[in-house]
């Protein structure tokens, strides 16, 4: 798994790449947790580089959004491929996560700006 991040104003965009399964989810968990502190209010997870996600990955995302909301923050996901989206649907995650088509729209959603092209 490759992990990188980017700042756009007060939005932090994190970009994991590869697959999120039992083996890789611990790394993702540590990485996300280290980035979520009391001061972070706006987080985007760019999922466009994710090939597939299993329940271990859903668990990490659920923990992340719970923790973030606990400190008044918000999380938006963008760029889910059809397989990842299907997993979200099956798990009922589309009703508890804000999901946008791509990362620009996800950022726009958080900043209230119009979506980029």
């Amino acid at each position: 798994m490759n992990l990188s991040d980017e700042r756009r104003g007060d939005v932090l965009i994190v970009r994991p790449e590869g697959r999120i399964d039992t083996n890789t989810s611990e790394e993702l968990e540590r990485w996300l947790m280290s980035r979520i502190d009391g001061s972070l209010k706006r987080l985007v997870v760019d999922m466009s580089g994710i090939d597939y996600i299993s329940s271990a990955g859903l668990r990490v995302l659920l923990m992340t959004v719970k923790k973030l909301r606990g400190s008044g923050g918000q999380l938006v996901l963008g760029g889910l491929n059809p397989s990842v989206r299907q997993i979200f649907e099956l798990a009922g995650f589309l009703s508890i996560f804000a999901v946008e088509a791509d990362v620009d729209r996800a950022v726009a959603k958080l900043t209230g700006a119009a979506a980029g092209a």
Partner: protein
Amino acid sequence: MTFEPAQLSLSVAGSSSGIERVCESFETFSSAHALPDDVRRSIQVVLDELLSNTVRCGKVGERPLTIEVGFRLEPDALRVEILDDGTPFNPLEREAPDTTLPLEQRPVGGLGVMLVRNLVDQITYDFEEGRNRVLLRKRLET
């Protein structure tokens, strides 16, 4: 017309490196036979769910676990067979979790078996000669 099935089977230790080996072998198998992306990804998720559960929960006493996985490509479907010598566990027996709960009440966990049941078209389970056997079938086109 004769049909020569494409097959692959392997036996691994019940450990995270064993799971990794299965996933890599399936990745190679998928490319070799140009499996559709949705099939490949669904089966990767299914393998992760079932094998990681077996490694985490299946151990019986001190004895190390052995997991055998077989893939067989048929004209219209992929079949996957998973055998393990861990504690008896029937994935069809488990009740589905409530996926409509609001965020605050959502347990962190308990989704894996439900995903497996939804990602394949058919599952059968039996316990024979001391081993769990799960047979999965995934159609190649929808």
